[in-house]
């Protein structure tokens, strides 16, 4: 080391002795406009500078310098010869739309696509920035082949379920690792991140690209890069977007009032049961035969009055959600310092009452560069407030989306402006409380006089109760999230650099819930006077790495790069909840309104912990790259990873990948091949692993909680631990090609992969006698094989007109190939079985309705048909999987002068979901709630009826009838806009750029799926919050 420094010290004055000369020049863009901040360096030396605001530069170069290199982000690099006496170099740099696509950001390194053996897809800023969706992960749907992203909820800001190349685990983590500006960030926490700040998202899929992440890389890595400032004139931008959201067009077909009353009457006549006033008040009801004419007239009158109610529950629970977004950003700098900063305000109302999201985000990114030292500081801070609906994703009637189905069409929620809910002890409901015509003992003639001045209720008040709940409670959270990171690189010698990254991902979510005192719901909690609870959760991830990079080119042909890093990661959480009771009506929604610890029983409850998550990693990372003549490149990566998630004996493990690329176009035999513009072949192989869901799953513990509390004493109860637990190892082999032809107007990328995961963590069912229902073991082997492709074609590409189409798709075949000592595990209505894909449905096969009796029929396993239902002995796994094998998206763009149209579709196909909604809406057990129209129109009535709806009073069971195709194609985005030409703007002087657009989200959905929405992240539909259809109008101005 010392000698090296000495050598340098010696050489410096020696170098000064060499003759020097000054090279000057100007750098412009294609149109001749000066480019500032372009870095200019003499190849093979350490001299360099950058252009000034006029694009001019002046550089003293050693006499032996032969070539100048010009580089600038967003432009293609160029080299210019300065041999001989040439001292003036004027050069034009070409903007390359595809330039950013040619650089792959892996989080640790920047890789040129032509020399990168990994499989990666890039989603660029224009596909992310202006989408009116608060969740970055949702925006990625259909944008990268092999990446499957679905929202489980239409609640603004909801996280998506994201899978890359299929699910890699059965009971472990399947979500990818997210890296932002060099540091890991929490998966599924994007509500406080502004998508407009994102420059690119790189989706890393194979071992070559993820092995640097070792034990966290197996599910793929999503590398998010925020926008950086560009040198030159400071540009201020204002962006505003306004819009509104409505529901998509659901296949919602429930009975209307006339149908419902008729249905009630029919089942009353046929089966003698009373499920509503259609029969109870009917003249044809034998129980009413003895009534006086006056009483009969009264009943007719009531029935007639009900007949005129037709409450549109869907309208009552959905609304038009308003949307607005405003952003102010500034970007600029010079050759040394550049900045990008933005402030964004985002406000979206959900399409269900009460649900919304309001967000403030700030970003400040700063870059410093000198000839020896570069640094990037990235700071993103967001604050989000969200309000939620009640009982989201449950079948409870308090969930407005289930009540919209359940509520009877003749139920009138308001009487004289007062909401009549079932639990109300006073008010108009009073009469009904003492007289409920739906009770069995009252199925005959009324025995209690009906008081005409009071309201009589003939329904279950399911819609009204949901409305009451909506009004008497609140559910909200607010989140503060900060992601701060710094990347540094110091050039020690020409070849050797030191580099480091340090960062913090911080998130604090405070949820609160008020149950208002003085409401019906408020009387249901301890103390009968409402409650207020707050839930506080903090999550901190700290990451730091540092090391050396050595790069050297020997001669013209051999270039090497070796990197060695040491990294530590720490991730820990902290959470706390309290619920206080006895709320002061004058101070609702604050803890100060709680009556604490009084003898009246208002004792607040508390819970929380200090350790979810609680994990740490340490790792030694090595990567090497060798290129021969830029033709053949070898990529090697290794990570020796230590993690707290596995027992001590298995804590350290090495992960690796090796890959190679062959740039075929550089071969001599290709020189005459003119139809191809580029052809790259890639191959890689390596091993990675995935994190565990729980941090100390291997430890048998004693834990507390409500389940261990008895007689007011907090005890402890054992938890399952498996000291043999170890990583799930995923070995991936990937072969791919990137090619372009027709003057690069057709660009294609194809990848084929085989991903095998061993030691798959399974929640093995245990005999209950062991004290646990299941325990985690490493027992499975699973294979994901697939093919991915993306291509884009510029059909017309001229100065004024651009017509382009593109598509991407991924086909992933998932198979469980081993489960250790057993062949299958049954999990509810699903099965994990060797030879089948993950997510396979497992249920009794539906054999239709017997036309003679109307009984539901099922297949026995031997193929015979029976009316006996026996889930244990009849269930089969013939109904496919809930995880779509085939996913992707396609887009088309059209540009004419300043006008543009961009359309984007996403799709997922080849999967089925359990339609639990049908189970509820076509079931005698729930017949006092509203039922599907099909039950009215199609139900079996008499021998000979051929139908799919069984006899009314037969028992409805879970069967394959409810396993339904959920494939969909979604017209996800349409953007029509106008970019005001510079010639117009130049007259305005102040404004340098203006774009106006109108865009729509989820414009149409093509699916066989009934109910509100096919898109969801799980296998069963249970009244989820559906996605919205949003129309927005936007304007962007640059100054």
């Amino acid at each position: 080391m010392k000698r090296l420094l000495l050598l340098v010290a010696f050489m410096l004055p020696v170098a000064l002795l060499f003759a020097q000369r000054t090279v000057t020049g100007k750098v412009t863009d294609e149109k001749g406009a000066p480019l500032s901040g372009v870095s200019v360096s003499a190849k093979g030396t350490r001299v360099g500078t950058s252009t000034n605001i006029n694009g001019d530069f002046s550089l003293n170069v050693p006499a032996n310098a032969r070539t100048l290199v010009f580089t600038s982000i967003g432009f293609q690099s160029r080299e210019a010869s300065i041999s001989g006496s040439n001292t003036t170099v004027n050069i034009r740099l070409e903007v390359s739309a595809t330039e950013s696509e040619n650089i792959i950001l892996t989080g640790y390194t920047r890789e040129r696509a032509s020399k990168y053996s990994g499989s990666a897809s890039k989603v660029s800023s224009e596909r992310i920035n202006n989408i009116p969706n608060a969740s970055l992960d949702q925006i990625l749907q259909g944008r990268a082949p092999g990446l499957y992203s679905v929202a489980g909820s239409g609640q603004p800001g909801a996280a998506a379920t994201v899978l890359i190349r299929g699910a890699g685990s059965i009971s472990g983590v399947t979500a990818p690792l997210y890296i932002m500006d060099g540091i890991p960030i929490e998966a599924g926490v994007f509500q406080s991140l502004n998508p407009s700040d994102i420059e690119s998202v790189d989706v890393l899929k194979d071992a070559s690209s993820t092995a640097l992440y070792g034990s966290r890389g197996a599910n793929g890595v999503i590398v998010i890069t925020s926008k950086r400032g560009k040198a030159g004139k400071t540009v201020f931008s204002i962006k505003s977007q306004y819009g509104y959201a409505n529901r998509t067009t659901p296949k919602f077909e429930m009975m209307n009032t006339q149908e419902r009353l008729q249905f009630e009457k029919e089942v009353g006549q046929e089966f003698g049961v009373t499920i509503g006033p259609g029969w109870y008040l009917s003249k044809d009801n034998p129980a009413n035969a003895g009534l006086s004419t006056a009483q009969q007239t009264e009943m007719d009158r009531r029935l007639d009055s009900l007949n005129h109610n037709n409450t549109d529950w869907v309208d009552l629970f959905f609304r038009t959600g308003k949307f607005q977004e405003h952003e102010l950003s500034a970007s600029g700098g010079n050759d040394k310092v550049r900045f990008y900063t933005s402030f964004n305000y985002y406000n979206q109302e959900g399409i269900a009452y009460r649900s919304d999201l309001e967000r403030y985000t700030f970003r400040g990114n700063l870059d410093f560069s000198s000839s020896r030292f570069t640094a990037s500081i990235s700071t993103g801070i967001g604050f989000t407030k969200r309000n939620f609906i009640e009982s989201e994703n449950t079948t409870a009637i308090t969930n407005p989306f289930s009540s919209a189905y359940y509520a009877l069409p003749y139920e009138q929620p308001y009487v004289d402006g007062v909401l009549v809910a079932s639990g109300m002890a006073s008010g108009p409901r009073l009469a009904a409380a003492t007289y409920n015509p739906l009770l069995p003992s009252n199925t005959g003639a009324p025995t209690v006089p009906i008081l005409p001045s009071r309201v009589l209720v003939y329904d279950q008040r399911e819609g009204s109760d949901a409305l009451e709940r909506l009004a008497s409670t609140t559910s909200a959270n607010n989140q503060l999230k900060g992601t701060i990171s710094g990347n540094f690189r110091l050039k020690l010698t020409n070849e050797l650099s030191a580099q480091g990254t340090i960062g913090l991902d911080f998130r604090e979510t405070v949820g609160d819930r008020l149950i208002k005192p003085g409401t019906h719901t408020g009387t249901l909690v301890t103390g009968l006077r409402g409650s207020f609870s707050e839930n506080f959760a903090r999550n901190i991830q700290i990451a730091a790495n540092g090391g050396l990079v050595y790069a050297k080119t020997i001669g013209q042909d051999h270039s090497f790069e070796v990197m060695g890093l040491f990294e530590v990661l720490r991730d820990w959480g902290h959470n706390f909840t309290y619920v206080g009771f006895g709320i002061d009506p004058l101070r609702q929604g604050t803890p100060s309104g709680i009556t604490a610890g009084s003898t009246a029983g208002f004792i607040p409850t508390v819970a929380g912990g200090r350790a979810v998550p609680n994990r740490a990693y340490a790792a030694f990372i090595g990567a090497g790259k060798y290129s021969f003549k830029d033709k053949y490149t070898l990529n090697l990566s290794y990570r020796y990873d230590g993690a707290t998630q596995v027992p001590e004996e298995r804590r350290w493990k090495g992960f690796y990948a090796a890959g190679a690329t062959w740039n075929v176009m550089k071969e001599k035999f290709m020189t005459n091949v003119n139809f191809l513009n580029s052809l790259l072949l890639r191959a890689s192989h390596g091993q990675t692993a995935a994190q565990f869901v729980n941090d100390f799953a291997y430890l048998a513990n004693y834990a507390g909680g409500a389940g261990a509390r008895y007689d007011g004493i907090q005890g402890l109860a054992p938890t399952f631990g498996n000291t043999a637990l170890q990583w799930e190892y995923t070995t991936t082999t990937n072969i791919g090609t990137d090619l372009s032809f027709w003057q690069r107007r057709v660009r294609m990328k194809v990848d084929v992969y085989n991903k095998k995961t061993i030691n798959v963590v399974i929640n093995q069912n245990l005999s209950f006698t062991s004290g646990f229902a299941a325990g985690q073991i490493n027992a499975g082997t699973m294979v994901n094989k697939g093919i991915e492709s993306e291509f884009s074609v510029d059909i017309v590409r001229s100065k004024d007109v651009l017509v382009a189409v593109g598509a991407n798709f991924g086909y992933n075949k998932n198979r469980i190939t081993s489960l250790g000592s057993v062949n299958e595990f049954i999990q509810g209505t699903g099965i994990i079985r060797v030879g089948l894909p993950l997510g396979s449905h497992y249920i009794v096969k539906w054999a239709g309705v017997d036309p003679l009796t109307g009984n539901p029929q099922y297949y026995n396993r031997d193929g015979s048909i029976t009316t006996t239902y026996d889930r244990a002995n009849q269930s089969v796994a013939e109904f496919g999987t809930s995880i779509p094998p085939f996913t992707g998206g396609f887009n088309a763009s059209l540009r004419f002068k300043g006008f543009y149209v961009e359309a984007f579709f996403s799709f997922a196909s080849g999967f089925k979901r359990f339609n639990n909604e049908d189970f509820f809406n076509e079931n005698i057990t729930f017949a006092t709630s509203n039922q599907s129209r099909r039950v009215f129109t199609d139900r079996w009535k008499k021998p000979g009826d051929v139908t799919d709806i069984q006899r009314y009073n037969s028992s409805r069971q879970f069967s394959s009838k409810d396993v339904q195709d959920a494939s969909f194609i979604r017209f996800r985005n349409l953007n029509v806009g106008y970019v005001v030409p510079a010639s117009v703007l130049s007259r305005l002087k102040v404004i340098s750029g203006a774009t106006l657009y109108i865009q729509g989200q989820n414009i149409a959905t093509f699916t066989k799926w009934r109910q509100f929405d096919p898109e969801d992240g799980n296998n069963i539909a249970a009244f989820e919050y559906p996605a919205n259809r949003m129309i927005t109008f936007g304007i962007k101005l640059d100054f």
Partner: protein
Amino acid sequence: MNSNKFFKYFLCTLLSAIALSSCQKYLDKEPIDSVPEVAIFESLIGLQNAITGAYAGVSPAVEDEIYQTALVTDEATLPTENNTGRGVIVYRWQYDAGTGGEANASFRDFYFALNRINKILDNIGSVPVKDAAEDATKKQIQGEALALRAYCHFELLRSFSAGFNGTDLGVTYMERSEIASPSRATTAVVLTKAKADLSLALTLLPTSFTLNTRFTRNAVIALQAQIALYEKDWDGAISLSSQLITAVPLATQAQFQAIWKDAGNAEVIWKLKRNVGDNRIGDTYFDRTQNKIIYAPSKELRDTYDQANDVRYGAYVLDLGGGRYTLNKYRGGDAANLNLADIKVFRTAEIYLIRAEAYAEKNNLSAGAADLNALRRARITGYADEVFATKDALVNAIMTERFKELAFEKSRYFDLKRRLLPVTRIPEDAINALGAIELTPAKREYLMPIPLAEINANGNMQQNTGF
């Protein structure tokens, strides 16, 4: 150059070694919110935490059992206003091993509790004690654990055995905590082991320990009396019952009403305490949130009471008006916490009925009638003693009295199963039963299925016939 190289290597190795060893320490993390299992049995405090956890495990299992037996029998009826679908599969006798989880949730929960209990019994030997007082506490905890183990197995046997003859297929008796695939033992084996545990428990439980929320000596004797009844050991049943009847007298009418408001403990030998914040057992029968009766006391049951004079009617049934009757037993005594109620496991009334039945079976009709009349006298205002001419008449009267006295206390199903009597529902109680009006012992649903999850996970577990 050589020395330089050596220096470089040396430095690298040294740095790596330092980094690696500090990494080892850096990765030495432990859970914060829980305690490693080994640490639990290193102190009496840990042991006390574990026994509390064991009771906490038993409590939901008993709640499951009460619900399961109410749904299956003629105690409960499904009112039309229950449109939640809860429990309907079991109420309609449509369950199989995989559907209608209410029929066998107690199987899972009792074995979960047994693991908590067995871990205590497996490790209690190693718990250090400082003095005689601590040693007494340790012994008491061991006695409680043994008694709980016997209790859980007896309840499992009552619910899931193929019958109560010694050779009938019983349930697995877990004597230690282990992850295994055991098979079922016969009823005789289960009862023998349970009795052994109880005998040992009696030697450990101090007479000074009388907290009726825990398993005391009296509770052990009550369980021994129950077991004797199931074994048809009439003499044993009589002598055990007699001990308790002397020790714990019947409640007066006022005291009786207080029991169900959790305002009094007369005649309560053991109850599972429920505190604010715990599950409210009454929520199963009456949905507070929607003022909806989920399962109502059947008309058949209501009609058995002398409604005007029998204190039990008002304590058990609440008339909401308009023909709506709901279960009052589990509404609790705290208006601010409706449906929060303690679960009474052993009451003196049942002990009287055990002794009455044992006397009747021994053809001692007068002694049997005396016990039955004593109970009725305590419950019914103006009751005149009844005289029974035959053993059958007395036994039938005792059965009916058990139905009335122990309604929704999980006795009904076991009493029918014990005597191989069918479950029958009157038409008024079967409006929503889809034809489920008679469940004879010949039908497979007469026995509760072992959960499918258990069968799937444990190849040695025998299923009850027909499932």
